[in-house]
Structures are given as structure tokens and as C-alpha cells.
């Protein structure tokens, strides 16, 4: 794409005088307000004979402009215009011809029968007119598909090694594009690309290296060879060097290697290259590597430091941007540059200044915060949204680092919220404030007040609903909840339906939580029942009815804590229910629970990993539906189909070392009365095929192995699964156990040359590590947003209380970690975070026990000289569950 740009710019040069004249005449952009249909109409002029190159050039330019503005052109119209354009091949006018090439490229994907120009382009590509040859190659490759590629292959090979650099470059880059769809054909051009790498022209060398890498990309060994070969003999092109550095970095990342490898040495040696571009690329690569020591970093950082005082703004920008990105990862290294960064604060280029300040904020100490904030607020209005976001991210990091500074920072964020800005920017600020509120209870009141002010004039529905939800959750628990009601009710009067619905939910939460506000809230909600929108009316009617019951349990279950089921699971369960109608009412407990806490525990990444954020989000989504996937997988196995709904699947546990002959992982799937052990086995011996693979488990203590599902065949390096079904003991309180396991199978040795297995096999077995079933396996984490309400809802009926001395742990954090791990419950209301310097703490845990019983735990912890003392209180809807949980710690 880069090259079509360079072409476009030549085209622009041809046309710029004309545009400039028009602009001076006050006409502005002559292509403004172009109508697609008019332009297509005008394109018929191409059919005239003789051709008027000037006029046709103008029309074609308009057509290109319209296409580039994103106008959708129908296939029929495009084909007509395309064929009209093909007639312009009559003209020898160079500008017109090059515009035609552009036109072909733009329309190659929308018009039909574009291959009509193949021969014409081939003629130009091999012709004498040099300035036609490169563009013709590019246009030709854009209209050629895999089936047609054979016919131009010979010409492409020739063009790659052509002595004219522009032609060679064009052919190389086009080959790169072609290889997306025709990998196999392009692979055959490797010799030509090899030859082109030796070219004297820096662009050709770069493009040739790019193509070579692309062809060998999937073969790691070949790539390693490629890098080591070219890192020795000197390349001319700095671009090629940069590419080589990137390839080397990727290799290091893939192998998870650190310094000391030849790849790293190569990158390190590039720090002494004579081209600034290469030096920067190398430095940037080194600081972004994962496994680096302070010693490895030092030369790279000193290079960046040098760039910081360069007279070239681009170098300063590049250096400070890189430092900014790695500030959180290597604070010590970046601190070394502090003096240079201080000098950049007053840089005339605002982008450089912003990055310098935010870098300093990230690495600086508490005392410098005030000064830097003052400095940055002086030019906040001059920088673009993109950099404002950088500033906000820096502040977010600061809030976490210096909780005591929240006053300064909150005020600053509030003033930024008041300023103009796009959605991304505002979202970042709101996220930052919300994060601060959750981390730091002292900042809560101020933060909520700022957010209330913000939603008074907020054009973004998403943000408004998000804030209303937060107000509903946090507002009722503040000392003066009543002051928030006004802000929320204003939304009901002024906003669109989505925001109104969110506001209604928020008011209901105030009503449910604060008894003194109940009556007023009911009055407000009753007014909302007249709303024009269905959703708002439905919500308010529902809430009014629940609130009027005045029952704690109801309010807690239906207003404060909501449904905790997986949406996919709920959909499937309801669908199943409608397919097989029965007299029995739908049982909510049969729906699998949402595996929500995963999202909750997501740690915000350092800004250095901006590019990775989307992949992480998708990973979370995958995790949320993991259980649904297992449910489907298990249901597909006839022996295991009738066990009911899957309650919980544990994370995979390795029960062999990862380097052994057979690698086995175990996943425990918990059902109401059964456990299914899923063993994922991998055979790492290439001279064996395993058959009829099962895992024998020695059951005991009331557990009973019911069935085994064998894995029929386990060839080399193809994972397979075998299952063992076990019935849980009748006695409700015996839930834990340890089971020795043995892998049993029939081995068939393979012929080492052909890989064909022998006909005869023999039985063998392999001892695995024990599989343990713990209390945590029986418990599903569920987050109760309002723990106190749930605590009251369950009531003291099955309450058990005991006091323990935890001698082995020395800090509250460790105690909390251990307790959470043993019980497998979800910490609520951020009680898993201990404020600094406190010697006592209360941990709230909640979850659901197998069978659908609510389980709540309150652990009061106190730190003293001998260790941690804990008073554990368990409440549950089932007495045996309370007993199990209370004894789990002991």
C-alpha cells in the first residue's frame, strides 16, 4: 500500500499546480461535493475518439477521488467505467497512462472481467517506456488471481531481477501481495529474490529481504539462517537492517530467549551502525524485549538518551516515545534519562513535551507530582486527544502509585472532563476515575461527585449508563446517599431511553439499600412507570413491586445482586425447556453459573503493551464461555451425556512432567452427583502409537469409579482425551479425596523409516501423579456486589463459627490468598485488598456450592507476633455445606 501512496504523490505533483490555483481563487478543494453518478456519467467520455488526455485525466482523477472517499460503486457501474477506462490505453500520454494504472488497481476488486487488461499491462511491463514498467507490474498483480498467475510467472521472475530499481521493487512488493493468496507460486521465485537482495539499491534490497522473509516465514529454522546469514555480510540498506532487527526480535520473543544468543548480539551490534534509523530500531527492540537484564539495557538506553538531545525533532520524539512505553517496565533504566527528559518538558513540539512529562510522572517521586501537573495543565488545550489519553493513562498509574495524591489528580481529571474531547478520551478519564474510586476509598466521595457533574452534560450513552451503574453500586454506601438521587433522577427526565433505564435501576438500588430513602425512591419509580419506553416502564414496575414487599431477601436477590448465570447457558437451558415442555416450573439452579471473576481479576497492563489489549479482551471472552464449551464436549460423548448440567470445570492440572514420554493434564468436571475426570494425553514418542488408552483411578472413602471412556488411538503428538466417571459419596460432608492414577494402554511400535505401526501390540502402563479433589472443586465463584445484603438474605440458620490460628503465614495478604485458594470462593467488595499498615482485616467471600446452595464466608483476620488469627463465620442455605467449608481450612 505504501507504494500506491508514492504513486499517488507523483500524481499529486502533476496536479498540485491546478489544485493550488483553484484554491487561491477561493474555490477550495475542487473535488469537494462530487457526485458519484455525475462522475460515472462523465467517465463515458473515455469512449470518445480521438482521446483528449487532459480532459480524461481530470475525469479519471475525479473517479479515483470518489472511490478513495469510500463511495460504494456497484459492480455493474464499475465494470462499465472500467471498460471505458481500458480505451484510454490508446493514448500514449504518460500522466494519463499512470492514472489508468491507478484506476485499474482501485477498480480491480469491484469491477468484473478485469483480466481484459492483462495483455496491455504485460506489454507495458516489458516495454521500453521505463516509467510505465513498475506501475504496470503493480496493476497487473492486482488483477491477477492464482489461476492466471502461471501465465505471468516468467515475466515476474524477470522483473524481480531487472536492473532498473523501480521495476525490481515493484515486482518484489507485488509478489509480497500475491503471496497472500498464491503462496505456492510465489515460493518458486525465491532464487530471484535471493539475487535481488544483492542489489545496490537500498529499496530493492529492503523489498527483496521482505519477500524472502515472507516466503520462509513459517519455517523457523530457515528464518534463523536468513538472519544469521545477512547479519554477517553487510547489507547496504538501512531499511533492510531495520527489518532484520524486527525479524530477530520476533525470533527472540518466540524462543523466549534472553541476551547471549547470536540474535541478541546482532541487535546489540546494530547500536553502533552509522544510520540513525538502524540505531533507533535496535535500541527500541532491546528495551521492548521481555527477558533483559540491566546490563543488556544500558547501551540501548544510553542511545535513546543521546537521541533525546538530538536537534532533529523526529529523533527526540522517537526516543521519548520509546522511553514512555517502557517507563513502567524498566523504571530504573528510564530514571537515568530523567535529566534529559526534564529538558524536553519545554520542547516546542507539544507531542514531545507531553510524552516527556508523562514519562516523568510514571517514574518520578511523590514530591515532583505537583510541579509536573502544573506544567502539563499549562498546555493541555494545545495537544490532541491521542496525547491527552497518554496523559490520562499516566495519571491512572500515578493514582495507583501515590494514593495520597488523589486530591490533586482528581481535581485535574475533573477539569479535563469539563473540556472538549472525543469519546475515547472521555472514556479513558471515566475509567481512570472509576479505577481510582475502587482502589482508594478516600477518593470515593470526590470521584463520585465529579462523575455526577459529568453525567449532567454527557453526550455518550455508554459512559452515562456506566456511571449510573457505578452510582447505584457505590452511592448507597456513602454517608449521604440522598445527594446522588437528584443527579440520577435528572437523567430520567432529560436523557434517552437507555440512560433512563440505567437510572431507574440505580434508584432502585438506593431504595433497596437505604431504608430511610425507600419511600422517596418508590415515589420516583412510580413516576417512571408512565415512561414512553418499554424497558424503562418494565424495570420501574418490577422494582416498585419488589421494593413494596419490604423484604430484605427479595431486595437483595433481585435488585442488589442480580442474576449470576451464564447468558449462553441460560439461553440453552430455556431453549431446552421450551423444546420439552413439562409440568415442572423452570429451575433456575439448573443453569450453569457465569464464570465472571476472570474479568474481575484482569490486571490493567502497563501502557507499553497497547497493542496487546484486544487479544487479552478476547481471551477473557473465551474464558467466560470455556465452561459452555466443556458442557458441549461432554454432552457429545454418549457415556457421559446424562449427568445433568455441568456445575464447574477446574483449570487443567499437569499430572506428569512436561518433558516425559507421555504428557497428561487432568480437568475435573463437577456434576451434581458425579465427577468426570478428563485426561488430555499427548504421546511425545514418534516411534509409538498408543491404543485403548484409559486412566485407572483407585477410588476410596466412598468414591466409586463407574465408567471409563477410552481414547481409541493416540498417535505421535496428537492430543487425545480419555474420561473416568466417578460417583460422589452418599455422605454429604465427605467431598475431598486423593486418587492415585495409572495410565493403561496398548503400545504398537512404529517402523522408524515409514512410520507404519506394527500389527502386534503389547499392554503397558505408566504411573501418573495423584489427582486431588478439594473443596474448591465443589464451589463456583460468584461475585455478590452487595455482600451485606446477601449475608442477611441467607440468614443465621446454618451459621458455623470457629477461630483458627494460622501459624504458617506472616502477612494478611498471604492469609487472604490461602483462604481464597482453599475455599475457591470469590472475594467481594474488594475485601481481598488490605489497606496499607492495617493489622486487622475482614474478608468477605461468596460462592455457590455444588447443588446450588449459596455459600458465604466472613473471615476476620488479625495480625500479631505469632502469626495470623482468624475468626471464620460460614453461612449457607444447607447445613452440610457450612460444615464442609468451616472444616476446609483446618
Amino acid at each position, binding site marked *: 500500500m505504501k507504494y500506491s501512496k508514492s504513486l499517488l504523490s507523483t500524481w499529486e505533483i502533476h496536479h498540485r499546480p491546478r489544485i493550488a490555483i483553484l484554491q487561491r481563487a477561493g474555490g477550495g478543494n475542487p473535488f469537494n461535493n462530487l457526485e458519484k453518478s455525475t462522475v460515472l456519467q462523465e467517465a463515458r467520455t473515455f*469512449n*470518445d*475518439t*480521438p482521446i483528449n488526455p487532459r480532459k480524461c485525466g481530470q475525469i479519471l482523477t475525479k473517479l479515483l477521488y470518489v472511490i478513495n472517499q469510500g463511495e460504494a460503486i456497484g459492480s455493474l457501474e464499475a465494470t462499465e467505467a472500467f*471498460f471505458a477506462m*481500458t*480505451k484510454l*490505453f*490508446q493514448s500514449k500520454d504518460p500522466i494519463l497512462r499512470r492514472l489508468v494504472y491507478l484506476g485499474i488497481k482501485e477498480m480491480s476488486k469491484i469491477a468484473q*472481467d478485469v*483480466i*481484459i*487488461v*492483462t*495483455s*496491455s499491462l*504485460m*506489454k507495458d511491463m516489458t516495454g521500453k517506456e521505463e516509467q510505465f514498467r513498475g506501475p504496470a507490474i503493480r496493476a497487473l498483480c492486482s488483477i491477477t488471481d492464482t489461476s*492466471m498467475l502461471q*501465465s505471468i510467472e516468467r515475466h515476474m521472475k524477470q522483473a524481480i531481477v531487472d536492473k532498473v530499481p523501480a521495476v525490481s521493487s515493484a515486482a518484489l512488493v507485488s509478489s509480497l501481495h500475491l503471496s497472500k493468496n498464491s503462496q505456492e507460486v510465489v515460493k518458486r521465485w525465491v532464487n530471484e529474490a535471493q539475487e535481488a537482495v544483492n542489489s545496490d539499491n537500498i529499496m530493492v534490497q529492503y523489498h527483496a529481504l521482505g519477500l524472502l522473509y515472507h516466503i520462509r516465514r513459517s519455517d523457523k529454522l530457515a528464518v534463523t539462517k536468513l538472519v544469521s546469514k545477512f547479519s554477517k555480510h553487510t547489507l547496504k540498506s538501512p531499511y533492510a537492517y531495520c527489518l532484520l532487527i524486527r525479524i530477530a526480535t520476533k525470533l527472540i520473543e518466540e524462543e523466549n530467549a534472553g541476551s547471549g544468543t547470536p540474535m541478541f548480539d546482532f541487535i546489540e551490534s546494530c547500536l553502533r551502525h552509522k544510520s540513525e534509523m538502524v540505531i533507533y530500531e535496535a535500541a527500541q527492540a532491546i528495551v521492548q524485549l521481555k527477558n533483559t537484564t540491566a546490563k543488556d539495557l544500558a547501551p540501548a538506553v544510553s542511545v535513546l538518551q543521546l537521541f533525546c538531545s538530538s536537534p532533529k525533532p523526529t529523533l527526540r520524539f522517537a526516543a521519548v516515545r520509546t522511553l514512555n512505553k517502557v517507563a513502567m517496565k524498566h523504571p530504573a533504566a528510564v530514571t537515568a534519562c530523567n535529566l534529559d527528559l526534564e529538558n524536553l518538558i519545554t520542547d516546542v513540539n507539544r507531542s514531545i513535551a507531553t510524552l516527556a512529562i508523562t514519562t516523568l510522572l510514571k517514574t518520578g517521586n511523590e514530591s515532583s507530582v505537583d510541579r509536573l501537573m502544573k506544567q502539563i495543565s499549562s498546555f493541555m488545550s494545545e495537544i490532541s486527544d491521542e496525547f491527552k489519553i497518554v496523559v490520562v493513562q499516566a495519571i491512572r498509574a500515578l493514582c495507583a502509585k501515590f494514593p495520597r495524591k488523589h486530591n490533586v489528580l482528581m481535581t485535574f481529571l475533573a477539569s479535563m472532563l469539563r473540556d472538549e474531547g472525543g469519546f475515547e478520551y472521555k472514556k479513558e478519564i471515566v475509567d481512570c476515575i472509576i479505577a481510582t474510586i475502587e482502589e482508594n476509598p478516600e477518593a470515593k466521595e470526590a470521584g463520585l461527585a465529579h462523575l455526577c457533574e459529568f453525567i449532567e452534560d454527557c453526550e455518550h450513552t455508554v459512559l452515562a449508563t456506566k456511571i449510573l451503574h457505578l452510582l447505584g453500586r457505590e452511592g448507597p454506601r456513602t454517608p449521604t446517599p440522598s445527594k446522588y438521587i437528584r443527579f440520577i433522577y435528572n437523567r430520567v427526565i432529560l436523557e434517552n431511553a437507555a440512560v433512563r433505564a440505567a437510572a431507574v435501576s440505580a434508584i432502585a438500588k438506593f431504595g433497596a439499600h437505604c431504608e430511610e430513602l425507600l419511600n422517596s425512591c418508590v415515589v420516583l419509580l412510580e413516576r417512571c412507570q408512565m415512561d414512553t419506553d418499554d424497558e424503562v416502564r418494565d424495570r420501574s414496575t418490577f422494582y416498585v413491586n419488589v421494593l413494596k414487599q419490604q423484604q430484605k431477601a427479595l431486595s437483595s436477590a433481585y435488585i442488589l445482586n442480580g442474576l449470576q448465570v451464564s447468558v449462553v447457558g441460560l439461553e440453552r437451558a430455556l431453549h431446552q425447556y421450551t423444546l420439552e415442555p413439562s409440568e415442572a416450573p423452570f429451575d433456575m439452579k439448573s443453569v450453569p453459573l457465569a464464570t465472571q471473576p476472570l474479568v474481575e481479576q484482569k490486571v490493567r497492563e502497563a501502557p507499553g503493551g497497547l497493542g496487546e489489549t484486544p487479544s487479552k479482551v478476547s481471551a477473557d471472552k473465551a474464558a467466560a464461555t470455556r465452561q459452555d464449551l466443556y458442557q458441549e464436549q461432554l454432552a457429545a460423548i454418549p457415556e457421559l451425556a446424562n449427568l445433568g448440567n455441568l456445575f464447574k470445570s477446574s483449570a487443567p492440572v499437569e499430572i506428569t512432567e512436561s518433558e516425559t514420554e507421555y504428557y497428561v493434564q487432568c480437568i475435573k468436571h463437577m456434576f451434581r452427583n458425579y465427577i468426570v475426570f478428563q485426561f488430555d494425553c499427548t504421546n511425545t514418542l514418534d516411534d509409538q502409537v498408543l491404543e485403548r488408552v484409559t486412566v485407572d483411578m483407585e477410588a476410596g472413602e466412598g468414591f466409586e469409579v463407574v465408567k471409563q471412556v477410552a481414547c481409541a488411538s493416540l498417535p505421535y503428538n496428537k492430543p487425545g482425551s480419555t474420561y473416568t466417571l466417578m460417583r460422589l459419596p452418599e455422605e454429604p460432608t465427605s467431598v475431598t479425596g486423593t486418587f492415585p492414577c495409572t495410565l493403561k494402554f496398548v503400545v504398537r511400535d512404529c517402523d522408524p523409516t515409514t512410520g507404519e505401526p506394527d500389527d502386534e501390540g503389547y499392554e503397558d502402563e505408566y504411573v501418573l501423579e495423584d489427582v486431588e479433589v478439594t473443596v474448591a472443586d465443589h464451589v463456583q465463584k460468584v461475585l455478590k456486589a452487595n455482600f451485606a445484603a446477601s449475608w442477611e438474605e441467607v440468614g443465621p440458620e446454618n451459621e458455623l463459627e470457629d477461630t483458627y490460628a494460622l501459624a504458617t503465614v506472616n502477612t494478611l495478604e498471604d492469609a487472604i490468598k490461602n483462604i481464597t485458594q482453599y475455599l475457591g470462593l470469590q472475594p467481594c467488595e474488594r475485601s481481598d485488598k488490605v489497606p496499607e499498615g492495617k493489622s486487622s482485616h475482614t474478608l468477605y467471600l461468596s460462592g455457590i456450592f455444588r447443588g446450588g446452595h449459596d455459600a458465604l464466608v466472613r473471615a476476620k483476620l488479625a495480625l500479631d507476633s505469632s502469626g495470623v488469627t482468624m475468626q471464620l463465620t460460614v453461612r449457607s442455605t444447607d447445613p452440610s455445606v457450612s460444615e464442609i467449608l468451616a472444616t476446609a481450612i483446618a
Partner: protein
Amino acid sequence: MGFFDTLAQWLGVKKREVNVLVVGLDNSGKSTIINHFKPNDAKNHDIVPTVGFNVERFKSKSLAFTAFDMSGQGRYRNLWEHYYRECHGIIFVIDSSDKLRMVVAKDELDALLQHPDLKNRRIPILFFANKMDLRESVSSVKCSSLMGLENLRDKPWHICASNAVTGEGLSEGVDWLTDQIKDLIVSRKK
């Protein structure tokens, strides 16, 4: 067309430009015929099957021709019609040694004549019965009867036997086409 162009043409310095369409089945010799008209230094030595079309220019005694050399391969023949409207003459090349596919050529010709862009125009059509040097080739008379040219009454046509490799018969045909197109232009001016 500017004043100077008109003047130059009137004085006979600049030749009038016309478009001709070169069609026919694949491997009938279209590109070779066009290649023959090109000046010696621009000649192409290896002719490969055309994909799509090629634009070539050549001159006869009083006209400058722009020839659209179309691809004759089966799947590209439906693309000919995009170029019917703007042409002043058609050159239809027949491989006179390929009796088997003469019917295919006839089908293509009939489709061409029936096309709305050409149906009502008195457009001159020049037929080359090419490859006359080959032993199994048929005479131009036989060729015209096989193509059913006697039924073609509403358009001026001419058939001549040719050998594109040596150039025999080509200039005779193009001279006829030149005269026809000039007549047409003159009659249109009146």
C-alpha cells in the same frame, strides 16, 4: 479537435485517426497480423496468446489506425462487445486451415452481426482467410461460403487470403478497408 489539427489534416500532413477492432478465434493469427504492420524496430518476435486485448497503432496510406487486438480465447470472446461502439471497422481473422472450427467462427460472426451496437451500422468488415500457405487450408471462396458471407448484405465486406508470417495479402486487405472507411467518413460529412 483544434483548429491546427483540422488544418493539418486538410493539408494532408496529419493522417486521420480511426479505430478498428481485430477479432477472430484463438490461434487464428490476429496478433501476428497486427505485428506485421508495426515498424521493424517495434516488432515483437514471440507472439503469445493475448489475454484481454492489446492496443496497437499502424498507418496505411492515408489513415492512422488504432487497432484493438482482442483475445480470441473462448472465455474472453464475450468481452469483444465492449469495444464495438467506438470502432470504425472490423477485421475478422479466420484460420483457413481449421475447417473443424469454421462453424465456431461463423457462430461468433453471427453473434457479432446481431449485436445491437453493430446491427444497424454500415460498418465495413474485412475478412482475412489466414494461413493460406498451409497445405490443408481452403481457398478464400470456400472460406466465404463456409462462413455464410453471401447472406451478409447490409454491410460492405471483403475477404482476402493472407499469410501473416510473410505478410502476403495483408496490405491488399487494409487498402480496401482504408477506402471503405474514408468513403464512410466522406458520406457522413455530406
